[in-house]
């Protein structure tokens, strides 16, 4: 595992009594797109701050691109890009001016590199647009451009697509995959389940602890303890009550116009239909459902 771009060993950070990051271990390999999923306050940003050398670990160690993240943070930051959700763009400057300005911060004086960056994030034709008049999706591309203008080998993305519509998000992720294919390693933090689905591997963070890290498919197979069913029945509340506590029903909840339930493996559609019918609930349909990363998170957290 010597080609790990990020290696985190027992990484821990305390603030007084509070343990923000609690003995976390993981590795990220070159060209991987890894998600770091957890609610606000679960320790995601504190981890990133330690990886960028902005914060000293209380215990443990982080190696980034072969450098000690804290002792050699200059080396790390020269080779890593960071795009934050609240990234400051200059609204009064044009797209081009923002890129030239931030490029300058990294010592990029080459106009050719600025042009390449504009091409890379698909902002061609918008060079002289004032930043304030960009839509959320285009602002995001500009923020990404600024984060990669110095051609980093490693890119940190902090909730990159919150607030944009699915079309813009899809386009953004196409860009991210293109970068990963060219060898850039990408670490994405998000509290957003849908966004985590886009990652090759996902780490689930809660209360400072890394609960699991694997591919979304593997997490769904191994962590979710059974099969998912979508149950369409009337009245819903009675259906909910009927399924609650039934042997083999692990979880049942309301999902808008139907019930969503997780049963032990091997339970059949007919079993559910029978339980409901016996309690006077009208069942119109029972469909096999798909587990989600939210199911994974709930299984790990409870």
């Amino acid at each position, binding site marked *: 595992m010597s080609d790990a771009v990020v290696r985190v060993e027992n990484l821990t950070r305390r603030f007084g009594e509070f343990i923000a990051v609690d003995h976390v271990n993981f590795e990220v390999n070159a060209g991987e*797109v890894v*998600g770091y999923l957890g*609610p*606000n*306050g*679960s320790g995601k940003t504190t981890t990133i701050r330690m990886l960028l050398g902005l914060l000293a670990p209380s215990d443990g160690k982080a190696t980034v691109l072969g450098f000690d993240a804290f002792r050699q943070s200059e080396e790390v930051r020269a080779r890593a890009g960071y795009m934050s959700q609240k990234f400051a763009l200059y609204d009064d400057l044009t797209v081009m001016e923002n890129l030239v300005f931030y490029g300058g911060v990294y010592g990029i004086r080459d106009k050719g590199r600025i042009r390449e960056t504009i091409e890379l994030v698909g902002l061609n034709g918008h060079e002289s647009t004032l930043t304030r008049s960009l*839509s*959320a*999706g285009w602002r995001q591309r500009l923020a990404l451009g600024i984060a990669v203008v110095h051609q980093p080998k490693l890119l940190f993305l902090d909730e990159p697509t*919150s*607030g*944009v*519509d*699915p*079309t*813009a998000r*899809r386009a953004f*992720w*196409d860009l991210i*995959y293109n970068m990963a*294919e060219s060898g850039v390693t990408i670490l994405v933090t998000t*509290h*957003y*389940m*849908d966004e985590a*689905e*886009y*990652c*090759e*591997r*996902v780490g689930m963070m*809660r209360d400072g602890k890394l609960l699991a890290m694997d*591919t*979304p*498919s593997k997490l769904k197979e191994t962590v979710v303890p059974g099969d998912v069913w979508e149950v369409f029945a009337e*009245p*819903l*509340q009675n259906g909910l009550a009927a399924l609650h506590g039934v042997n083999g029903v692990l979880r049942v*909840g*309301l*999902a*808008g*116009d*139907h019930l969503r339930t997780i049963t032990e493996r091997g339970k059949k559609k007919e079993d559910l239909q029978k339980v409901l019918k016996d309690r006077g609930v009208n069942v119109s349909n029972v469909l096999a459902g*798909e587990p*989600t990363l*939210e199911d994974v*998170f*709930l299984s790990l*957290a*409870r």
Partner: protein
Amino acid sequence: MDDINLIEAKNLYRHFGATRAVDGVSISVKAGEIYGLVGSDGAGKTTTMRLIVGALLPNSGEITVCGYDVRKHTEDARSQLGYLSQRFSLYEDLTVLENIRFFAEVRGLKSNEWYPRSMEILEFVGLANFATRRAGQLSGGMKQKLGLASALVTRPRVLLLDEPTTGVDPVTRQDFWQLLIQITSTPLAPNLPSPLHSSPNIGSGDGGEGAVAVLISTPYMDEAARCNRVGFMRHGKIIAEGTPSQLRSRLTDRVIELRGSPLKLLRRIAQEDLDVEDVRAFGDRLHLRVREGKADLVASRLPSAIRSEGGNVDGIRVIPAVLEDVFIELSEQSYE
């Protein structure tokens, strides 16, 4: 009584200068229904909500809440409304109970009314043990429940929630939705008199009289799936509306999941297939949207094409569409 629309908005228009924030929106939400307004930042969700609560006047259009015209009978309409805005304000120095008291008294409730009601609501949202804790000391999820409790203290028949679950723990979010669905289908208690029903009804069960109508906005597609009905908003317009199942059925047998490696090769070959309209990469797999009636054909020919170029296929199958697929398909159509 099932078909009474507690929220009825017709042909709403609202512009800010040259920006048409709300551009011909009609929404109706009946008792017992959760209507999800889904769209990106700037699509017009918040403006629509502010028009319905009467915080903002439309350039044209009509809105009634529980039968009251919001423009002419603003106070009557508002007395039926609970509103949780995106940045709802809590008094961090006040306790949980004091916060609720404040909102109750602003609405003109007396202490013999609000106190028992508050305890009941706090019990319901799971904050009963925290009644004396200062709001500033609550976690994000608890603050949000307090916001909901404050909006519920007047026993509104109509609840408007503007992106209430942004940034909260999935566990809390799950709880929040279970609460919301219960509020909607089984009312907590009798409601304030309204022109629509003269005799208040206690615990009337799901739907119909006494039940609450909820309008909730969210940028999250997985959350939209929990609503009874969904309206997709884009550029100030509702571009599609229906139950999640109806919306998803637009793409029945049109989405294929493909798993294998290397992903780059899979993507390229899928994109080259003429019957594949759209390719979305998801880390360890692809979702392909295919032309109508072509799913089996594509699923049978892609694996051989991939193998002939040295790739691996671990699995290929038709899967149910998710709302995100539908939104993307609709957005592409509205460009054409």
